């Protein structure tokens, strides 16, 4: 029952903020911060209480018997890191949007509706319910981007929402196929995971579900919504998009497609691995060519999600551990990078074009070093969470019979490319004199970080460091839950 508080708090927050008068931006952001923090505290409390195996806080109420839907909630070791990252990003999103004045009440109403939908997906133990929350998370994104967005916001918002919705249409078809194929009487994970599904059915349904979810995870070639969407979105929304919403897709791939269709997964895993490596390499190379700072981060997200997908495609304990760890890690770091570029730096320079930046290292030294740290974390420097995650993924990929050695080598090359673009872009952004003329980046020192910004950076960077130094904090909790999936994969013939 306890974990449900995250969900309830978010929707309550949406209602509370939405009903406050628009003029009261100050009060609204404190209310928003309170609801988001309570959600994070609940998630932390869940993490501390979780014993390391099984499903915690399980509830199972009847809902719509004739459609096989039940209100089944609970979390296990796979949901847990994602609940945490959702809580973290939700809090930091509020912190980095501290100055928002325009239509603040509506902003947080949509914001918390999205956060609530995300929590709901991670907590659902019933696929119908999971789908409901998955779709609840779709619509607020449109308004967040279309109202408060920037570059080509109408186009980006519509594209993002239609991609997500098309993905969920595939998912819905897959879910119905799964349900009727399993001859099930409910959509609960418990029942569906015990059903025996014929191999041909799994071969057909797996791609429906996997691709449907993977659209949201930014899988190539369905990734194009991600960079445009991230760039157009206001900071808090792009943090949520990169940090959490892309994880919804990856989580669905793992929990539903791989978790319930082991035979399908084995057949399709090599293809998924190939696409994942395309993600890694393509994302890194495209990021190298970008001149808009936010697009760099946008494509680096695509590249990092490639590691998640590669981890999923290994179908081994190590690789799946890496995938979940990478979901957490990229959630935290991706959100931090978007916050730095979209809010902290942009609010000072009023430009995101790399050519217009002028020796920022001397003019905003603290911010520059925070960004450099975040960049190092993003490229997987030991000590940060990204390192542990990518190491697990690559090790899993070596062990895995489904991923060919050539692909692993290519993925390794992708890591090198990540190093490359991160360092190049750090140089271009902070250490290079101005290239373009007529820049809006004025001379002189910039004002230091505000308290809210410091708090947000510390929270995100700190959690990445903590998990990087002690990955077992999270990995220990997920082993039992992942083992269930891996065992099912090994048993399936």
């Amino acid at each position, binding site marked *: 029952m306890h974990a449900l508080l995250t969900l309830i708090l978010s929707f309550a927050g949406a209602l509370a903020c939405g009903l406050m008068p628009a003029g009261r931006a100050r009060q609204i952001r404190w209310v928003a911060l309170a609801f988001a923090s309570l959600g994070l505290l609940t998630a932390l409390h869940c993490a501390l209480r979780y014993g390391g195996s099984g499903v915690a806080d399980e509830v199972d109420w009847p*809902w*719509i018997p004739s459609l096989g839907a039940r209100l089944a909630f609970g979390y296990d070791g796979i949901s847990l890191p994602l609940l945490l990252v959702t809580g973290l990003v939700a809090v930091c999103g509020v912190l980095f949007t501290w100055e928002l004045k325009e239509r603040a009440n509506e902003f947080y109403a949509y914001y918390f509706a999205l956060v609530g939908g995300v929590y709901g997906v991670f907590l659902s133990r019933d696929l119908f319910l999971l789908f409901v929350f998955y779709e*609840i998370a779709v619509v607020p994104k449109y*308004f967040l981007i279309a109202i408060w967005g920037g570059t080509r916001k*109408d186009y980006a918002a519509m594209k993002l929402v239609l991609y997500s919705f098309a993905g969920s249409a*595939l998912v*819905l*078809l897959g879910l*119905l196929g799964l349900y*009727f194929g399993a001859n099930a009487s409910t959509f609960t994970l418990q029942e569906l995971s015990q059903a025996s599904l014929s191999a041909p059915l799994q071969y057909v349904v797996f791609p429906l579900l996997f691709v449907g979810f993977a659209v949201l995870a930014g899988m190539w070639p369905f990734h194009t919504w991600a960079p445009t969407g991230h760039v157009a979105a206001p900071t808090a929304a792009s943090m949520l998009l990169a940090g959490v919403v892309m994880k919804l897709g990856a989580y669905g791939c793992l929990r539903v497609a791989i978790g319930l269709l082991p035979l399908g997964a084995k057949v399709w895993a090599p293809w998924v691995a190939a696409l994942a490596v395309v993600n890694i390499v393509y994302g890194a190379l495209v990021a190298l060519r970008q001149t808009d700072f936010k697009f760099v981060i946008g494509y680096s997200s695509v590249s990092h999600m490639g590691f998640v997908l590669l981890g999923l495609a290994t179908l081994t304990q190590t690789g799946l551990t890496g995938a979940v760890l990478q979901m957490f890690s990229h959630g935290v770091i991706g959100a931090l990078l978007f916050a730095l570029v979209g809010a902290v730096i942009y609010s000072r320079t009023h430009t995101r074009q790399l050519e217009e930046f002028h020796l920022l290292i001397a003019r905003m030294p603290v911010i520059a070093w925070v960004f450099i740290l975040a960049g190092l974390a993003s490229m997987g420097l030991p000590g940060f969470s990204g390192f542990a995650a990518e190491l697990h993924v690559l090790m899993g990929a070596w062990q895995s019979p489904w991923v060919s050695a050539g692909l692993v080598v290519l993925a390794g090359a992708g890591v090198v490319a990540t190093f490359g673009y991160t360092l190049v872009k750090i140089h271009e952004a902070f250490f290079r004199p101005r290239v373009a003329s007529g820049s809006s980046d004025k001379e002189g020192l910039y004002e230091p970080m505000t308290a809210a910004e410091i708090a947000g950076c510390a929270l995100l960077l700190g959690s990445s460091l903590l998990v990087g130094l002690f990955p077992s904090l999270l990995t220990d909790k997920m082993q039992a839950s992942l083992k269930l999936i891996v065992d099912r994969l090994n048993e399936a013939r």
Partner: protein
Amino acid sequence: MDGHLMLNALLPDLVVVAGLFLCLGADYILLRGRDVAERHRLISRIASWTLICGLLAGLLGSRDPQLLQLQIGDGQLVITPVRLLFKLTAFLLALVVVELIPTRPATSGHVSEQYALLLLSALGVGFLATSHHLLVSFVALELLSLCLYALTALDMGRRAGAEAALKYFAIGGLSSAFLLVGISYLYGVTGQLNLGKVSAYIHTLQHLPPLLGVAFLFLLVGVGFKLAIVPFHLWAPDVYQNAPTAVAAWIATGSKLGSTVLLLGLMLPGFDAPNAYSPVSRLLSSGLAVLALISMLVGNLGAMRQGNLKRLLAYGGVASAGYLLVGMVAFSDASRVAVLFYVLTYALASMGAFAVVALVSDQLGRDAEIDDFRGCWKSMPGIAALFLIFVLSLASIPPLSGFIGKFGLFFAALQPPPVPEEGFGGWSWLVAVALIMSVVGLYYYLKVLRAFLVTGEPALPPVRVGTNAWVVLVMLAVLVVALGLWPEPLLEWLR
């Protein structure tokens, strides 16, 4: 038959008939020569109290178990919980329409006529919902349609309204002819007019006579027109756009409820079939599948191009009729429930959306271009928020009732039939098309919401919305949300 029981069963209808005469009588005798606004106020009170009394009479009746399984006139009228629910929902929707009829004196000299025609057409929907007999259904449908033709043309200040009404009347008359010819062919084959007996007779036939196919074709054409199924939908955009918005709302909802019940009745042979592979179900389901496919395609793709909100809603209605048929093709109990549930939720959300249009643009004398609603979030935040709920439900976004409705349809269409040898998911291609088209649907509904909630400075000054209008709007929104969060009681009632 017990006369007392029959009186009780027909009490809601009798109340409405009495109210109808009261409206006309009061207007012609007591209020002659009075100010138009005052006449509007009084007559609309009479009309709404009539409908409320009708609703109460029906609700009281529903407590009597005898009334819930009653056959009147040798099975011509059948009252079941589902049919009663549809009848009362029609009265409820008519009640909403009463609140939406503009009271501006400039509209036309007609006052009581509008309310009387509305009550009469509500009566038509009520009889359509309870009729189990081809001729009674036909008469009820004509009662409804004739009132709608007149209501469409009633705004005499608008040329376009008269034109739309003429179009509606011409195509409608033709479709009635098709329906009548279909009925007579069906009678020629089966010798029965009672829908249950028709179905039973068809199942005794060894071979289906070709005339039966022709009969069903004609019947589908006739009902297809009323439901705005492609290719019989051409009247809908013009009529929705040019009729007074309150009337368009009533056409989109009340008429749809009644026609859906009629369609379910006509498809009874399919539902009664021992399995989905009997010849008659195959005949009917293949016809329905084709209509479903083209309705979804034309409706959704057509709606994408509309700049007028009422036309867009009309095409959206065409698309929704397509989804409805997707649910129907399976001919199972689940599909019957799904169709009924869907049409109810569609009617509620659609009425809500039209109500917003009526309140905002009619009062300002605008033509409901989507762009007119720009900046509504600023000038009328409450209205914009309610509109968000209605439109998201039309776009079938959870947790609103439209989602549950549409999911139920797809669920029913994919459900494997009891005789499994022919494999599973015969209609999965149809559901796949429906899902793709839902994405298109979200696109144009978001375009509408964009005008309401996203952009710029208000295009229209804020409108004063009366208490009654607020009450009905909030009631509709609550129903739309509640039936999404907790649909089981209604699904149970429909079963």
